């Protein structure tokens, strides 16, 4: 295995703040040696998008780069694809680099499909001869052969994307960089992109895949790194990286101590809600298809006993449409005694929710019939669910196609 991408102490600093007359003259004064005055832009305007990032990628690796918005993923990508230069550090690359984030850039609406194929190919770094040699293949792959002499502005957006993708797909780079966030187009096209990553990977080429789609990372990647605040916070196999990504961030229990909008008699109160995974690690967000434990930490303030205690949650979409309800009464678990401190833990195996944000209401009732409430809070938790590999196929169903995920088996029956 040889190293094809080597990133060494890479850092990137951005100057924030507006450029205006003041900074112009401040810049001039600075340049001509005058003392830096207090009125010049403060140092806090400097922002490090990447700090001392180092990692290596071997030939044939499919590296998933995970991270939240602002973690430095896009900056890393822009440096790797040479759109902007780093502030310090170096990157060594071996082989032709191409990035799928550029699908269709440089398409000119007035030019014909044919002209645009050549232009786009040249922008991506192909020579005229290379494009000419592959032209028939590209045309066939795109499926818009009949319209190659029509100006691209008369194309539907789908046709444009298909043609652009056909060019990119025939670039045959040794190192492919893909930014899922920037991969425009409809779901079908995104699937095609993801399919292309699989193809490229199977051919033994190297792929850097920037994503926060844990499902895609899990099924496609072989390795993963997690960026956090511009630094590499984790490096390892893809599933380790996904775990690290989910547990890393702000993974504290959400305290409810200050919520004034709760109701109930106050005999016991939920103090915080915590998300945990199967192994008990605190999570920042849940993953579709993974076991989720919801920990409702409580404190008891009364000596009264409630033999039929019922802890109930309602999960709704952000617009308030009910998704499901759950309670210990429904599952047949009864809690007869309540220790002074503890937690109601609701385990949801293989979380069947698509990527979205949900609202969780809870009610701790003395009884499942008489709604004599000890503690009750609407909108107690914003439950972030990120895309996970629910179906174990790498395929993802979005919230728009349904608020829950249902597993099934398909078969084809012959009826004679």
């Amino acid at each position, binding site marked *: 295995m040889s190293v094809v991408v080597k990133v060494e102490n890479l850092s990137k600093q951005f100057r924030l703040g507006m450029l205006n007359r003041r900074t112009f003259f401040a810049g001039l004064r600075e340049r001509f040696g005058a003392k830096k005055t207090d009125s010049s832009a403060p140092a806090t305007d400097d922002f490090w998008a990447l700090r001392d990032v180092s990692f290596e990628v071997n030939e044939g690796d499919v590296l998933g780069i995970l991270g939240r918005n602002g973690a430095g993923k896009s900056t890393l990508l822009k440096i790797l694809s*040479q*759109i902007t230069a*780093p502030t310090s*550090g170096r990157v*060594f*690359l071996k082989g032709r680099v191409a990035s799928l984030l550029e699908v269709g850039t440089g398409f000119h609406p*007035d030019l014909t499909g044919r002209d645009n194929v050549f232009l786009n190919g040249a*922008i991506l770094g192909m020579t005229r001869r290379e494009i000419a040699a592959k032209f028939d293949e590209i045309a066939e792959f795109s499926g818009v052969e009949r319209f190659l002499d029509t100006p691209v502005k008369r194309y539907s957006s789908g046709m444009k994307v298909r043609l652009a993708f056909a060019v990119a797909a025939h670039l045959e780079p040794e190192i492919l960089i893909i930014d899922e966030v*920037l991969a425009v187009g409809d779901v079908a096209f995104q699937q095609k992109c993801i399919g292309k990553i699989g193809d490229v990977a199977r051919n033994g080429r190297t792929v850097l895949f920037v994503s926060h789609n844990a499902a895609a990372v899990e099924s496609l990647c072989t390795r993963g790194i997690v960026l956090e605040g511009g630094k590499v916070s984790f490096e390892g196999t893809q599933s380790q990286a996904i775990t690290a990504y989910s547990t890393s961030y702000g993974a504290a229990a959400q305290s409810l101590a200050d919520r004034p909008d709760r109701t109930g008699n106050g005999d016991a109160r939920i103090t915080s809600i915590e998300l945990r995974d199967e192994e008990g690690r605190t999570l920042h967000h849940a993953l579709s298809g993974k076991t989720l434990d919801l920990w409702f930490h409580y404190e008891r303030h009364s000596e009264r006993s409630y033999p039929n205690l019922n802890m109930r949650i309602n999960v709704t979409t952000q617009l308030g449409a009910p998704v499901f309800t759950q309670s210990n009464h429904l599952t047949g678990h009864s809690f007869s005694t309540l220790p002074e401190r503890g937690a109601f833990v609701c385990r949801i195996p293989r979380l069947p929710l698509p990527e979205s944000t949900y609202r969780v209401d809870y009610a701790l009732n003395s009884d499942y019939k008489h709604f004599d409430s000890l503690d009750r809070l609407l909108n107690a938790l914003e439950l972030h669910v990120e895309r996970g590999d629910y179906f174990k196929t790498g395929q993802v169903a979005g919230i728009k196609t349904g608020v829950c995920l249902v597993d099934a088996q398909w078969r084809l029956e012959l009826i004679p």
Partner: protein
Amino acid sequence: MPDSPSAPPITWTKIIVPARNAFDISWRELWAYRDLIRLLAKRDISAGYMQTVLGPFWFILQPILTTAVFSFLFGRMAKMGTENIPHFLFYMSGLMAWGYFAECVNKTSMTFLRNAPIFSKVYFPRLAVPFSIILTNLLGFLIQLGIFLVALAFYMWKGAPVHPNWRIVLLPALLIQMAMLGIGTGCIVASLTTRYRDLSLGVGFGVQLWMYASSIVFPISRIAPDDRWIFYLNPMVPVVESFRFAFLGTGLVEPIHLIVSFGVSLCIMLLGLSMFHRTEQTAMDAV
């Protein structure tokens, strides 16, 4: 870098380093992208005229109309002398030379602003854009030259006192110098516009003013001899004068003026290219 001694030496094909200064432009890489330069030029030419009613006819119409207006305004109304040269030939010769230079400056200066959507998504040597602009404008110039030659032949047939001479062979050198000066000036402005947008608004205006300071609408012989040196500091003046001298046989220019203006053009080009190269590496952070 201290690689472990047993590791086989790796031949990297590309090393990305922090923003560098000045002159380490990779000409080899630019050469590898020569097809792109050509295709960009082709795009600008065909896309610019494809959807217009008159099409490529604009290439012809524009210089003729401008020349006609100039002949009327400066020749007829203002009665600026043209050294007995027919007005049409005099103004057109100046305008076509100037037009080539001015277009190079104007278009190049917009490189970063106009191409930001592409530049922010894909890497290629950014200098491909200015070089494609030179090519595009060259075509426009050659078409105008064709018209000019027809007009020249017509006036000579009518017996006008114009004398094309052997100095026409200098034309390629003059074109190269104008391209150098144009790309240099354009690159300087382009580099500055990424930080100071005001310049993109001022550049068209500035180029226009520069034209009136060049011997486009008047022959340099109309300037008092003692004041001429100021005009010769303008690197475009010797070029335009040589241009006229080659085709029309009148013009005031000495080899020393040409050498100085070539030197100035070279310096401006080097300054422009180095500024451009420095800017291109971080331009997309600002635009």
